[in-house]
């Protein structure tokens, strides 16, 4: 009997890495626009004007793939139950080495919050990005607010991203495999997502 269980389908994995690639392209091409302090990042693209062009190409790719990812997971990430509240109260067990048991389904509430934040950020970044794209076509106040919100959502996204990368790699060994090969070890699934594991295996 296999020691592994499928966590993400091929379609979900490819989608995730399209989102990832476009996200980091956007970060690298956009950070120089966020502040002059990061002007050096324009060099990756051969100057600011090219960076803007790449930003405008990667933007719609990120928007569409991220929006699709949200729709794909909508049902699993938008409801919170009492087990989730318990998880929140104990900060997911991340603040101590004590053993803990949460009856978590496919996603824990931290992951749900992350997914919901990215969904909101995608929407806000997409809409404000449109105004910033052709600023002279819109009233100045709309563009001014858009520039602020675009920066705010960028800051929020990049901070969540640090957390996401940490928790999905070295913070929880055995996790990233699910997004690479698609399957995770059964003991990992029993430990982190017991309710999902039971649903998938039908009992043991």
């Amino acid at each position: 009997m296999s020691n592994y269980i499928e966590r993400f389908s091929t379609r979900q994995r490819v989608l995730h890495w399209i989102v990832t690639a476009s996200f980091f392209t956007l970060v690298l091409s956009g950070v120089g626009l966020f502040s002059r302090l990061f002007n050096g990042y324009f060099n990756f693209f051969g100057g600011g004007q090219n960076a803007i062009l790449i930003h405008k190409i990667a933007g719609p790719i990120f928007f569409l793939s991220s929006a699709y990812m949200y729709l794909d997971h909508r049902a699993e990430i938008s409801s919170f139950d009492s087990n989730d509240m318990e998880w929140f109260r104990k900060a997911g067990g991340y603040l101590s080495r004590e053993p803990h048991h949460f009856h978590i389904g496919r996603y824990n509430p931290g992951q749900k919050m992350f997914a919901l934040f990215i969904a909101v950020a995608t929407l806000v970044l997409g809409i404000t990005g449109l105004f910033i794209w052709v600023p002279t076509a819109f009233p100045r106040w709309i563009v001014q607010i858009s520039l602020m919100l675009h920066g705010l959502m960028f800051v929020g996204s990049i901070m969540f991203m640090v957390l996401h990368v940490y928790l999905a790699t070295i913070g929880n060994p055995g996790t990233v495999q699910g997004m690479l090969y698609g399957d995770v070890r059964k003991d990992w699934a029993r430990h982190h997502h017991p309710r999902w594991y039971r649903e998938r295996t039908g009992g043991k």
Partner: protein
Amino acid sequence: MADTINRSGRKGFLVDTSKCIGCRSCQVACKQWNKLEADKTANMGSTENPRDLTPALYNRIRFIEKESSGQTVWQFLNQRCMHCGDAGCIKVCPSPGALYRTKEGSVVFNKEKCIACKYCVSACPFNIPRYDSNDKVAKCHLCYDRIAAGMSPACAKACPTQALQFGNRNDLIAKATAAKKKLYGVDDLLGLGVVYALEGPPEQYGLPAKPEIPTSIFLWKDVIKPLGILGFWGSIGAVLLHYVTVGPQRTEETEDKGGSHE
């Protein structure tokens, strides 16, 4: 970071609206010196022409018509880049050298370094910058080439009534204050490079009573940016700290097998 300006050596305009006769010599002289093409305009039923600044019109006369004891009275305002002491356009410009301050305190641009982001359009308290057909910034640059050669700007040179006076900013303000003029822009935004002597409230001339960098631009540059940089490095520090204190969440088998993938 507000750009710093040399206040004692700062040069600027004093625009005395009481002396302006609306002849628009300044408009024409500017176009001539800066080799700006003519704009097609339309008759809008007003003597004001053109109705707005364009990429090929760095300064213009705004005509304000008002009724005064049964008579129509005209007021004229020379509209242009104000060369703010705290310039919103320089604050947001992501391309070093595209918008910068000269040693005389003027805010000038270099089209070759402009990357067409148009952030300056949104950040200007006076809605001045325009973009040309090549998507490059255009606005009054206070004839920095003439100033560098010891001449006065083309507009001031052409003004027949001395409504447009150019010179040491402090001297111009001192003279106007002594003449008991009502001044606009002496202290706003660390002092405007264009100070007006007005004959009525600023709003009457289409000027904001209290000009400032738009709030959302201020929040972006002075709040979100520093806190964001702090937050980014803070979150990296926090996860590393977590790793060496609480440590990763291991399942029993990871401890046994060292997390290897079979």
